[in-house]
C-alpha cells in the first residue's frame, strides 16, 4: 500500500515533466484514453435509447434518443429480468460471504498457527492455482448432475466457496498486519482459536476483506461459461445467461437487446464505483508486494 504514496518531489519520469507543451500532450493522450475506455458505455446508452432502425443509419446517430424507458420496459416484458437479477445477486452475495469467511479463517490459521503437514497443505493449495478451470468443465458438470445440483444456484455458489487465491492473499495480509501481541493478549483473556479469529483477526482484516470481497463479487457476477453450462433450467438463469439468450431470441430487435445489456451492467458498475478507491489501491498494492 505504501506504493500509493508518491514520495514528494519525485518527478518520476522525465517524460512530460518538462515544458507546458508536453504536459498538455500528456493530458490530451490521457483524456483520449479515457474516451476510448468509456465510449462503449456511452454507445450502449445511445443504442439502448434509440430504435432498431436508428442503429444502422448512415451517418450514425451519435446522441441518445428518447426511447430508453420504452426499451427497458419491453425488456421487463420479454424476459424475467428481475428473476435473473435476483439469482445473480444471490449467487454473488452468498458466494462472496462464503469466500470471505472461509478464506479469512484458513488464512488466519496458516498465518498464525502451527499444525501438522502445514507446509505440505499450503504447497498443495498453491498447486491448485495452476489448474485451469476449463480443464474439467465436462466432469464438473457430470459431478453436479450426479449431486442433483445441476440447474440449482448451489452449483454456482458452493464449489467456489473457498478458493486458493483468497487464502493465499489473506495469509500474506495476516502475516503483515496482525500483531502477535494482540493475539497473545487475547489468549491471556482465555480466548480460543475461533474467538481470536472473530474478535481480533477479522476486524483487522477489514481492508483485505473489502478488496477480496469486491473482487469475488465481480467475478461471480460476470461469470458466464459455468452458469451457461450448469444452469439447465431455462427459467432460472443468471443475468449473463439471460442476456445472451435475449441476444439470440430477439436479434431482430436490437434496441431491446441493448436495453437489456445496459440494465445488466448498471448494478455492477454502481457497486464498483462505491468501492473503487479501496479496490484500486489494494489491487495495485497486491500486484507489487504485500
Amino acid at each position, binding site marked *: 500500500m505504501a506504493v500509493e504514496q508518491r514520495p514528494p518531489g519525485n518527478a518520476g519520469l522525465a517524460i512530460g515533466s518538462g515544458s507546458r507543451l508536453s504536459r498538455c500532450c500528456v493530458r490530451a493522450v490521457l483524456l483520449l484514453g479515457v474516451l476510448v475506455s468509456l465510449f462503449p458505455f456511452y454507445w450502449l446508452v445511445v443504442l439502448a435509447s434509440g430504435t432498431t432502425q436508428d442503429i444502422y443509419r448512415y451517418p450514425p446517430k451519435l446522441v441518445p434518443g428518447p426511447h430508453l424507458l420504452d426499451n427497458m420496459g419491453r425488456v421487463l416484458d420479454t424476459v424475467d429480468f428481475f428473476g435473473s437479477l435476483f439469482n445473480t445477486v444471490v449467487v454473488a452475495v452468498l458466494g462472496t460471504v462464503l469466500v470471505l469467511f472461509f478464506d479469512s479463517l484458513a488464512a488466519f490459521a496458516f498465518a498464525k498457527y502451527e499444525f501438522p503437514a502445514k507446509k505440505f497443505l499450503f504447497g498443495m493449495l498453491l498447486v491448485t492455482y495452476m489448474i485451469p478451470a476449463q480443464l474439467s468443465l465436462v466432469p464438473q458438470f457430470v459431478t453436479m448432475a450426479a449431486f442433483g445440483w445441476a440447474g440449482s444456484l448451489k452449483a454456482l455458489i458452493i464449489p467456489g466457496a473457498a478458493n486458493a487465491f483468497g487464502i493465499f492473499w489473506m495469509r500474506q495480509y495476516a502475516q503483515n498486519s496482525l500483531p502477535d501481541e494482540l493475539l497473545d493478549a487475547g489468549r491471556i483473556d482465555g480466548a480460543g482459536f475461533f474467538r481470536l479469529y472473530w474478535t481480533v483477526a477479522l476486524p483487522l482484516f477489514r481492508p483485505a476483506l473489502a478488496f477480496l470481497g469486491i473482487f469475488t463479487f465481480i467475478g461471480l457476477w460476470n461469470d458466464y461459461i459455468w452458469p451457461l453450462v450448469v444452469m439447465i433450467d431455462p427459467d432460472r438463469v443468471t443475468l449473463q445467461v439471460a442476456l445472451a439468450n435475449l441476444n439470440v431470441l430477439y436479434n431482430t430487435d436490437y434496441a431491446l437487446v*441493448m436495453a437489456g445489456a445496459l440494465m445488466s451492467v448498471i448494478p455492477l458498475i454502481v457497486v464498483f464505483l462505491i468501492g473503487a478507491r479501496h479496490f484500486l489501491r489494494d489491487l495495485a498494492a497486491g500486484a507489487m508486494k504485500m
Partner: protein
Amino acid sequence: MATVLEPAGAPAANEKPPAGRTRPTTPGGRRRHLPPLLAISPFYVLFAVFGAFPILFSVYLSFQDWDGIGDMRYVGFQQYGWLLRDSVFWHSVLNTFEIWFLSTVPMLFLALVLAFLLHSQVRFAGAYRVAYFVPNVTSMVAMTVVFGSVFAQAGLANSVLRAVGLDGVGWLSSEWGIKSSVSIMIIWRWVGYNALIFLAGLQAIPTEHFEAARVDGANSRQTLFRVVLPQLRPVVLFAAVTSTINGLQIFTESQVLFQSTDVGTTGGPGQEGMTIVLYLWQKAFKEHQFGYGAAMGWVLFAIIAVFTVINWRLVAGSDDDRRPGIAGLLRRKGARNGR
C-alpha cells in the same frame, strides 16, 4: 518458490510453546491442532469434491465414448487420436494463439504508455484510474453485444471508415477482421488493468535511482532505458504470463459475437473466431461428446502447462533485487482467473 513456501512468519510459534518435546503427540496436543485444521478444511473438502474428483474422473472419461445419456463405451486412446487428427481443433489452437498475440502485444504496449503518462500526471489521478478500470469490471457478455453492433457491416466502425473516405472492413466476416474484433475487445478490457499494475511498479522504483541517473548526467531517454525499463521488467513479464493464461482460455467474446447466427456455435465464418475453449464447449455441450471434451481439456492443460513453464523460466531469468517473486505471479494469476 522459496518466497511462497517459507514458513508462515517466524514468530508463528506464538502459541504457548509446549513444555515438553513429546507434547504434540499427546491427545491434548492433537486437540490443540484441531481448530486450525478445522479452519483450513473447507478449502480442502471443496477441492476434493469439486476439484480433484472431477479431474481424476475426466481422465477416466477421456477414454470413453459417452453422450451423457446412454452407456459409456471404452475406446482407449481413440479420443486423443481423433483429437490429434481433428483439423478444426488445430485451427482453434492456431486461432487462440493468433488472437492472443494480436491482443497481448498492443495491450502491453498501450498499458505501458498509459502507465508512464499517469505517472507523470499528478492531477485527477484517482478519476483516471477509475475510468481506465471500468472496462475490466463490466460483463463481457453485455460489452460483446455492444462491440458486435459496432463491428457489423453497417455498424459504427465501418461508418467511421466511410466518413473518412475508406472502404468498410468485414470485421465479422473475414479472417483478420474476426481476429481483430475479438482482440480489440480484449485490449479494451485489459489495457487499463495492466496500466494500473505497471503504474504501481513505476511508483515503487526508489527515487535514488533517478537521482543517481541525474548525477551521472543521463538524459530522459537514457533514464527510461537504463533505469525504468529494467526495473519494470519483472512486472511486465508477469503481465505477459497472466495474459497468456487468460488468452488461452478466451471464450465469451467468440461465443457471444457469433451466437445469434446460423454459424453461431462455430466461431463465425471460416471458424476464424473458434478458440480452444469454445471448441471444447461446443463438442461437450452442443454435440454432447463428453469423452472428447474431457480429452480436449487435458490437451488444453498440457498447452497451458508448457507455456507456464516457459514463462517461469523467463521470469526466473530476471533475478534482480526488485523481483516480486513467484508469489506475485500467483497472486496475479489468481486475480485474473476470477472464479
